[in-house]
């Protein structure tokens, strides 16, 4: 009898297995195969698949402020300028010049540009876009009513923008503002809630043909009447993946970023190509100088720089995938990086020397004290980066500085830093490749920040150095690129001497793809991701 029962159960299991195999059969035919075309022309791809996720509807107003929504939106919406490896290039504007010492910008709009609905793009649309973006700031635009005095149309294809105050970043801000069709948006009063199909009509190289909020999928098709370079990828699909590397190995997606520990899987295999991203994501250690007097001493901050072994940090925390932080803040990959600034090579002796000079010459239980009995013991606030904090603790401990690690969740850390409730803190974020003007946002006294900012620009109260402030304000108004570069170089020197904050390291990510399938990937000059660049999908000369 019992035997009979177990036979039944086994047959049930067999049946279940059979059914699962049945289901298996039906999705097999959806295999994605993008054929490489004739070798004589540049390689094109029919379909490129990438890891997706829901980042919002792709109008310039509806995508989410976090994550790569803005870059997906840019596939649909063009702007006057575009970014290549070296800097800005003419895009919707075939020519541009700054006049009156940066008070005016004259853009010549390209002819024969069409919106996705077939209507022609005119200078009127450009004028409208600037005005509209001033009135309703786009999620990632940087222009506001405080910036622009007036926008005029000159002739039939030129747009003259007069700004309130000349600024070095204005060209970039104007040039990257998305151009939207007047005939669609002029009647929209609440752009955030405008989620019609018309809201994603742009003049960019791709049309959004499918978007699923719940699944986090996007599908783009090449726009046939695109004015610009031919699309090398006909269809781009973003699909959700559980494990990106697994999905890449299985051919579900065509490119992914990989962590250093799985790199060997792809390293010596000719079918894969690995590229290293520019290191534009970094950690900085900040000092709350208002609360803790000793932090105001330059020598103390320098001593910390000497005590930290940045290479060791990168080795232990990043498994080697990082670039040591520059004392001048701007990362080495930055177009305005000054390679000659003072750097603090790891040296406990020098750190100790500086601390002794400050009067902390006695050791008590391994912690330095001065004659008043004040201990060099501080709290280090981190939002989960415990490993990093522990290594720092170990480094500083060798110089007699005691660190108590306080680990909270990221949001709590942000809130406490914002309210000045910390001694030392570490924050990590991207954007280090952005325009060097972020130095002004971070370190100048009289910064009047406008529009939306990024964590990269967040400044922390308590630090003031008039000389540096003046210089940073001056570069902001300098239109001449070479002149400005000199000023930024000088600012980095001042920063390196004064170290108001410490750039710990910038992380490197690795991307891997199969060149056999598609090889058009490129990095924009200020950004770390291959898939975010519009030019990654277009033909190049």
């Amino acid at each position, binding site marked *: *009898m*019992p035997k009979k*029962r*177990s036979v039944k*159960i086994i047959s049930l299991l067999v049946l279940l297995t059979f059914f*699962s*195999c*049945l*289901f*298996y059969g*039906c*999705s097999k035919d*959806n295999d994605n195969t993008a054929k490489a075309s004739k070798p004589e022309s540049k390689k094109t791809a029919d379909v490129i698949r990438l890891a997706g996720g829901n980042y*919002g509807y792709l109008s310039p107003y*509806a995508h*989410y*402020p*976090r*994550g*790569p929504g*803005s870059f997906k939106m840019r596939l649909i919406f063009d702007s006057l300028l575009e970014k290549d490896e070296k800097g800005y290039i003419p895009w919707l504007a075939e020519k541009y010049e700054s006049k009156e010492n940066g008070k005016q910008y004259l853009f010549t709009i390209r002819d024969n540009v069409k919106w996705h609905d077939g209507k022609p793009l005119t200078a009127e649309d450009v004028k409208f876009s600037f005005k509209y973006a001033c009135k309703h700031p786009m*999620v990632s635009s940087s222009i506001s009513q405080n910036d622009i005095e007036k926008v005029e149309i000159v002739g039939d294809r030129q747009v003259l923008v007069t700004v309130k105050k000349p600024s070095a970043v204005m060209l970039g801000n104007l040039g990257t503002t998305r151009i939207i069709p007047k005939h669609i948006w002029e009647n929209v009063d609440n752009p955030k*809630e405008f989620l019609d199909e018309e809201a994603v009509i742009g003049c960019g190289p791709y049309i959004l043909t*499918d978007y*699923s*909020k*719940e*699944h*986090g999928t996007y*599908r783009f098709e090449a726009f046939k009447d695109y004015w610009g370079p031919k699309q090398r990828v006909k269809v781009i699909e973003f699909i*959700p*993946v*559980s*494990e990106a590397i*697994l*999905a890449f190995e*299985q051919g579900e997606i065509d490119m992914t*970023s990989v962590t250093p520990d799985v790199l060997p899987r792809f390293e010596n295999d000719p079918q894969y190509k690995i590229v290293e991203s520019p290191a534009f*994501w970094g950690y900085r250690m900040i000092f709350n100088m208002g609360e803790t007097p000793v932090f105001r001493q330059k020598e103390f901050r320098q001593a910390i720089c000497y005590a930290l072994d940045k290479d060791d940090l990168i080795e232990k925390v990043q498994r080697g995938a990082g670039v040591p932080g520059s004392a001048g803040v701007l990362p080495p990959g930055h177009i305005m990086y000054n390679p000659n600034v003072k750097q603090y090579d790891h040296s406990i002796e020098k750190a100790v020397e500086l601390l002794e000079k400050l009067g902390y010459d006695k050791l008590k239980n391994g912690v330095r004290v001065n004659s008043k009995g004040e201990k060099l013991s501080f709290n280090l606030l981190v*939002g989960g980066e415990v490993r990093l904090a522990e290594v720092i603790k170990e480094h500083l401990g060798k110089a007699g500085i005691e660190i108590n690690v306080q680990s*909270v969740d*990221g*949001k*709590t*850390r*942000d*809130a406490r*830093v914002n309210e000045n409730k910390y001694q030392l803190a570490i*924050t990590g*974020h*991207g*954007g280090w490749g952005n325009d060097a003007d972020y130095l002004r946002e971070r370190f100048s006294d009289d910064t009047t920040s*406008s529009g*939306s*900012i*990024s*964590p990269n620009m*967040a400044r922390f109260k308590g630090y003031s150095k008039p000389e540096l402030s003046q210089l940073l304000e001056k570069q902001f108004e300098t239109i001449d690129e070479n002149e400005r570069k000199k000023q930024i170089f000088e600012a980095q020197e001042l920063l390196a001497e004064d170290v108001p904050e410490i750039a710990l390291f910038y992380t490197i*990510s690795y991307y891997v793809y199969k060149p056999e399938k598609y090889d058009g990937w490129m990095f924009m000059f200020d950004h*770390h991701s291959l898939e975010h660049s519009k030019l990654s999908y277009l033909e190049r000369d």
Partner: protein
Amino acid sequence: MKGIKGGRLGEYLLTILIVVTLNFMLPRAMPGDPFLFLSGEEAGDIVVSYSEEQRQLYLEFYGLNKPVLSQYFAYLSELCRGNLGFSLYYNAPVSSIILNRLGWTVFLVLAAVFFSTLIGAALGSISAWHREKWVDKTLYALMITISEIPAFLLGLILLFGLAAGLKLFPLSGAITHFADYQHLWSKILDILHHSILPITALTIARLGGMYLLSRNSMTTVLAKDYIRTAQAKGLLKKRIIYRHALKNALLPIVTRVFLSIGGLVGGAILVENVFAYPGLGLLMRQSVMYHDYPLIQGIFLVVTILVLLANFTSDLVYKKLDPRVGQLEVAQK
């Protein structure tokens, strides 16, 4: 009888009110607010954050700078009108965001409850009947082992083994994207195919508990006099188990099934993250991360109502299965 029903209803309403209050207070007790980003999460994360003025503007716009109590009453009054609010991060009504996702989670949970109960009860009965013999011992050891593995770990094992290794199942998602289905039927098959691994993970994770419970319950019932009578009458084993024993052994199992729905929703959330399944799980994680108060409140409210609903159903079903419960209540009155 009516009074008792009214009392029950009151209890449920009170529970909902307490939960709503907690849902409202807890997210706000977290430091930070939805508009403060000073850091990016991981390498590659892009963040647009707000200047202090913008932040204040948004706080005012969403009424987040008002006293907590007045926010609370505004929330309650909107809730009574069926308005769950507007998500700060997703820029859409909370109800529509949740409705889009809810079906997937409910589907996973119900399927997992169904299979784990069915298989668990069957194996439990077998074990009870063969108590202390090798069948029982093997099953027992096996079940104890797998019941200790958390669902998401099972999910990972299944993902690497069956999906990545043997390529029997898709790696992620709930459906083949951008597919052109010939029939509705092929779409349904596709959805089922995608759901097998998550459901299996959840089912296995629940199986141990169900098995132990039904084994216990069955053992108790099998020791009862009426079973011995049935055996003495020479009834077939099948008949004894399914006609006489199972019905009585089912009582605690039914209760357990409904009570376990709440726990399963929790497990489903983790499993969904493993398979990038578009249920409430991922949504909940993100809403908490971004401090999207209305969305957090909405999700927790929906989950609460689901659990209460399950409890309520279990009350009803229990009464049906065990006539004594209904009679007892009448007698008390």
